[in-house]
């Protein structure tokens, strides 16, 4: 009987104008959005590659240890599946003085916004009159009078409606993904197919949760007019209010210190204060151990080199001083770094708590759970930013170790070698971003999958209970 009802519901929907409209709208939007974002992505990838090349050539030509961090700054390229899911739009971060302000004002249309806003609304439009509409048409009494149980009828309505909603949606998503897979600018990895499948699965869960909401309100309303109003009210709260208000409420409930203040403290501790300590320690070292070198320290490089070449004992003494100076720099950097790390740790801890709170507050809506899953899978979210920071941190340390060794070798060859002198860094390790594994990407968002499933169960159960008490007259 359930199968029969599913078939009937599906056939009825097939002939309905809303099915054709849903097919057309989702296909047109999905493919056009992916095509446009893909084009944008292509240009960004090309520009990124050319920037990496230019920076590489620059270091080969002008490499020196003093400004190595500055000249080898790793900028983040576009995410691999950014044409599908934009996630945290880095253009909206406005990192540069001359950044385009538009992304901070207007968001762009991607797969996630189509599913979360448009498909959820379509789902409600498919289900709001499933029960109340049948009652208004007088069919509900007839069906129930024919011996069909309420349980079977509701299940048939839920599954039949859902199938007719999911089919056009799936076709459009598959068309979009196929477009992406065939695009020459994106190298599809085997794991991407799993990502596509999971994205589709999460979208089904998300869309069906909203179908359940429409069905629930249909069982709680006497007329379709009331049902759509209630459903749209719930839609506004779940799609527009909770996710948007959550992060800002979290910031008010649990404030964190100013990030710029932290940046200023970093500059003070690891730059100005460090420089002052260095000068003080160096002077103390010269005073206590190298008073005899006072006249030659600070001489122009060519004069110093001449003096050291002509006097082997002096050369030996100067090497000792240079090593001592190196040690002072290393110790001071370590001490000041540790001092800053302590402050940063507290800040990061508080930031994480606020982020977690924002996640909890927003997870009261299916939208946020779906967004977290999508950005997690496509590496365009918060975890991906943390992963990127870890990768860059690791690389920076490897580069610093390499450059340090090169610098020491150069110092061995010529004790007058300075931090601003050319250092051949062409054989340095290059940054290779290793994306997080699929499991690593899925794991943090497992609770979100659970919440999405729970939303489906709750709304269906609520519709079920509502329908048991429904007055069919």
């Amino acid at each position, binding site marked *: 009987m359930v199968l029969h009802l599913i078939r009937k519901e599906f056939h009825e929907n097939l002939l309905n104008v809303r099915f054709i409209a849903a097919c057309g709208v989702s296909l047109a939007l999905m493919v056009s959005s992916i095509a446009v974002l893909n084009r944008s992505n292509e240009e960004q990838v090309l520009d990124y590659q050319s920037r990496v090349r230019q920076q590489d050539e620059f270091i080969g030509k002008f490499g020196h240890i003093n400004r190595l961090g500055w000249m080898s700054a790793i900028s983040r390229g576009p995410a691999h599946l950014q044409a599908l899911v934009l996630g945290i739009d880095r253009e909206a971060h406005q990192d540069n003085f001359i950044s385009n302000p538009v992304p901070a004002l207007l968001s762009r249309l991607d797969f996630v916004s189509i599913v979360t806003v448009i498909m959820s609304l379509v789902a409600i439009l498919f289900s709001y009159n499933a029960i109340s509409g049948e009652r208004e048409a007088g069919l509900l009494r007839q069906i129930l009078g024919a011996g069909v149980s309420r349980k079977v009828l509701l299940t048939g309505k839920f599954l039949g409606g859902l199938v007719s909603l999911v089919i056009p949606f799936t076709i459009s998503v598959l068309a979009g993904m196929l477009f992406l897979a065939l695009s020459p600018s994106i190298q599809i990895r085997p794991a991407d197919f799993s990502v596509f499948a999971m994205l589709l699965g999460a979208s089904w869960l998300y869309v069906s949760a909203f179908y359940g909401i429409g069905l629930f309100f249909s069982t709680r309303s006497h007329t379709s007019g009331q049902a759509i109003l209630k459903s749209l009210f719930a839609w506004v709260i779940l799609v527009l209010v909770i996710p948007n208000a959550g992060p800002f409420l979290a*910031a008010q409930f649990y404030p964190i210190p100013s990030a710029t*203040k932290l940046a200023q403290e970093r500059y003070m501790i690891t730059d100005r204060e460090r420089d002052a300590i260095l000068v003080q320690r160096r002077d103390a070292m010269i005073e206590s151990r190298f008073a005899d070198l006072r006249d030659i320290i600070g001489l122009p490089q060519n004069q110093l080199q001449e003096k050291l070449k002509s006097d082997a004992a002096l050369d030996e003494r100067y090497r000792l001083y240079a090593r001592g100076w190196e040690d002072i720099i290393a110790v001071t950097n370590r001490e000041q770094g540790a001092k800053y790390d302590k402050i940063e740790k507290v800040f990061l801890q508080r930031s994480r708590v606020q982020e977690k709170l924002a996640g909890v507050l927003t997870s009261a809506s299916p939208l946020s759970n779906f967004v977290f899953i999508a950005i997690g899978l496509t590496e365009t979210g918060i975890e991906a930013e943390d992963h990127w920071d870890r990768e860059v941190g690791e690389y920076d340390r490897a580069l610093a170790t390499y450059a340090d060794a090169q610098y020491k070798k150069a110092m061995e060859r010529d004790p007058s070698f300075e931090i601003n002198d050319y250092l051949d860094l062409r054989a340095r390790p290059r940054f290779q971003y290793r994306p997080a594994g699929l499991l690593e990407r899925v794991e943090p968002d497992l609770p979100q999958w659970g919440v999405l499933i729970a939303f489906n169960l709750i709304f269906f159960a609520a519709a079920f209970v509502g329908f048991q008490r429904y007055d069919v007259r």
Partner: protein
Amino acid sequence: MTEIVRKEILENLNTYRFYVLIGLIFSMMLISIIVSYGDYHLRVENYNILRPGPKETDKIILPPEPLSIFARGLDANAGRLYQLSSRGVEVQPNQQSINRVSSLFSMPDMLFVTRVILSLIALLFSFDAVCGEKEQGTLKLMLAGHTRRASVVLGKLTGRFLLVFVPFFVLFLVSSIVVSLLPDVRAGEEYWIRLALILAGSTLYVASFIALGTLISSLVNRSSTSMMVGLAAWVLLVFVVPNMGATVAQAIGDVPPADRVEMQTRLSTIQSIYETQQQMKNAKDKDYSRIMIQIRETNNHLFQSYRPELNRLIELTRTLVRCSPSGAFSFLATELANTGIDRDIRIKDAIWMFVERNFNRFGGLEKGEVEQFQFRPSTPGEQITGVALPDALLLLIIPGIFVALSVVSFMRYDPR
């Protein structure tokens, strides 16, 4: 016509729909004010921490704009700390003390409430204006008398507009008064003028959607079809066109990202420092002023050559996004609230010119005090006759077109 307006109001006033939708506006505006004021307050706290002392002329930070409570726009962006040096201008990317989750969603400010929710409510109040009466069979009766068709449709339109607008107007007024009394909010004459202009823009925006709903209602025979078409139009105008406009502009604008300019500036600065240091390595008297002049010239060249390209991209985005009343209203409201794109551009230009004028003093190349940075925002009059004029005109024309089309369509409507 007055009779029809009164009938429309009285008929809808005591309905389930009226209470649900008014409850929605009320709760949304309340949430909006709580959340937006909280955000503004945090930004004020941040500003107070970072505000430079009288001698710190190398730092610029602008106070948060109180009207950002109504339309946040780019205020958080414009209110960041600008660090000036001989290397140029650096901005703090993560100044705001707010979690990264917020960057995934939009701030539910008053602009958002009006643009997204009020427009939806306007459509839900007007989708059955004509076809609903037809379904009930009352349209025939109405037209059987001497009432002119144009009066009927205009009466319906006005009545339904008042049903949505009057509660919104009252709540907007109450919100404006409440916000003006809150700590940290300085509400002078300009605050009220700007809010009045934003309200005028909101009026036209709501009227656009009421007229659109009425137009759709007079084109179809059933209210369920009218609602479907109305919701599709709403999604198209509020979500698809503005967001797609921004996406398309970025894809076809062919403007390199700012990261490229940043890299070029950074590398040319390092190169200038490196080369000068190498040249002066063996010199007794080291004169580093050459480095600064070189850096300034290169940075200035990069900025000046990128600015027109960026402006072209911004203009293209504006043109595409304006195709929807929602886009035009966003631009109008943010400019009037002093949180728009134009203000952002003007601030950056003012900072750049300030650096230009004082560059030699920053670097000690020239004696004298660095002047105090001053930024004069545009007056509401300048904005309305300048940057916001196309948006204001569009918001005047769009409801006019929809109203005219509704009248024409209703003239041919079969009431049977």
